[in-house]
């Protein structure tokens, strides 16, 4: 297997990550953490392949547990990030509900 292209992707994606994250507002570091957590639960891809493939039962059990764990992170990660972000408001109180 030629692993050089994947290494390129890793290095370049890390640079993009460093550049983008550096500009994230400090106010939002907690939601940022739950958001990246949900995004990195993209391990769900590997879990689906292992769970759904034509493999021995014990392998698929490992996959199903991994899929459950990733799915939990996806669901709770995105929901709680949105819940937190909804709370960040500018000073609009007294002018009725902004939403």
């Amino acid at each position: 297997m030629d692993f050089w292209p994947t290494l390129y992707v890793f290095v370049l994606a890390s640079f993009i990550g460093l550049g983008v994250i550096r500009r994230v507002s400090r106010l939002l570091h907690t939601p940022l953490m739950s958001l990246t957590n949900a995004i990195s639960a993209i391990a769900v891809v590997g879990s689906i392949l292992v769970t759904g493939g034509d493999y021995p039962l014990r392998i698929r059990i490992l996959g199903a547990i991994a899929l459950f764990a990733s799915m939990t992170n996806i669901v709770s990660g995105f929901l709680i990030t949105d819940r937190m972000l909804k709370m960040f408001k500018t000073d609009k109180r007294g002018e009725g509900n902004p939403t």
Partner: protein
Amino acid sequence: MMYGVSQLGYLVASALFVFALHWMNTPATARKGVYAGVAGTAMAVIVTWAEPSVIHHFWIIGAIVAGFVVGIPLSKVPLTAVPQRTALSHAFGGAAAGLVGTAEFYLRLSEGAEALSSFRMVALIAEVLLGYLTLTGSLMAAGKLQEVKWVPQRPVTYPFQNLSNLLLFGAGIALAIAITLHPTAPWAPLAFAGVIVLSLLFGILLIIPIGGADMPTVIAILNSYAGLSAVAMGFVLDNKLLITAGALDGSSGLILAIIMCKAMNRSFTNVLFGAFGQVKQVKATGEEQVYKPETPEGAAQVLEQANLVVIIPGYGMAVAQAQHKVRELYDQLKKRGITVKFAIHPVAGRMPGHMNVLLAEADIPYTDLVEMDEINPDMPQVDVALVIGANDVVNPAARTDKTSPIFGMPIIDADKARSVFAIKRSKNPGFAGIDNQLYFSDRTWMLFGDAKNVIGELVKQLAGSGMH
């Protein structure tokens, strides 16, 4: 044909993830970021599920439903519990990577030597090592944050701790090298199991010497590990979406950890191997110093006269769940035309950004939350600095006392304000066990008690005096 479609799906998902993080740069666009993230994830799931090799659909549906059943309640925890929820989700992420890595190894083993090239073996071991280490490490961190009974809160240290950890780590690396060189040897499966056990052990050993005040850094580091384990999985599966998403997560954790370390003037190695809590037996100073206690009545009168009030929240505010009372105080002061700002230290609380989220929950506009570097030049003009359950982040010893363990740490200069009120639960020193000179300054008055009650009293006083 199918290959092209799935690769296109992964590519679009990668782009969506980059946009998701990009939109986090301001609160105004941040929610768009969540939608982009959801869209990217959904696309990746659908594309993967449609792969012809995926045939056991009931299993997948079952696991996904279970994920929703657990995930939805986990997203509804009170915001004071967000640090431990975050640690727990790092544990889940680590577990997923570790388990998939384990499954992959035993699968490829049956396919023979060519399926286990050296590169793939290195990636597999990295995935398993990072995955399981993150699993137990994050569980320990979550336990410490939740104050679970059987998880020690104080840093645990013992003689030769770093040396024995290092030896254990060496043993793990030796095993890893042996498997990489001889992946099909008869002892390889057993050695692989050994790596798993050692990784699980590392996670525990890495976290037990770390104290509560260092949790923001540790959570950020674990975040980074969870991302890197996803990267390793991407290398194993040759999937560029996994690598991209994992790298984004990994660099995010890294940047947060660096910010946290800078905000404490400490290095990574010092946080991880320094066992902060143990050095803290600072000798008592010669003369006995006395606090000047104040009553809420007196404090309220001073607050009323102020033009500019800066509130400095710390972990104590989170523990007392005082943020809603703080908001009432904020309203009372605002009503009198007093300018109120919140000074946020990067490591206040137990995770990056912890205070901002709590104050936003209490409906305080984020435009009034000010970073340490921005507020410090203005501190001499501040009439009243109100310290709520913060300690080390306002300790002037960080600027003046070379012998102090926190010397050099950037702090919020509360001591430069014209007067200071500090709300404190007890007369004991704070978490790090360091005496705080701020409390003994002649401009400082102490309000002892639970933050929520004390602020409640302040609000009552202000509301009462407003009537006549």
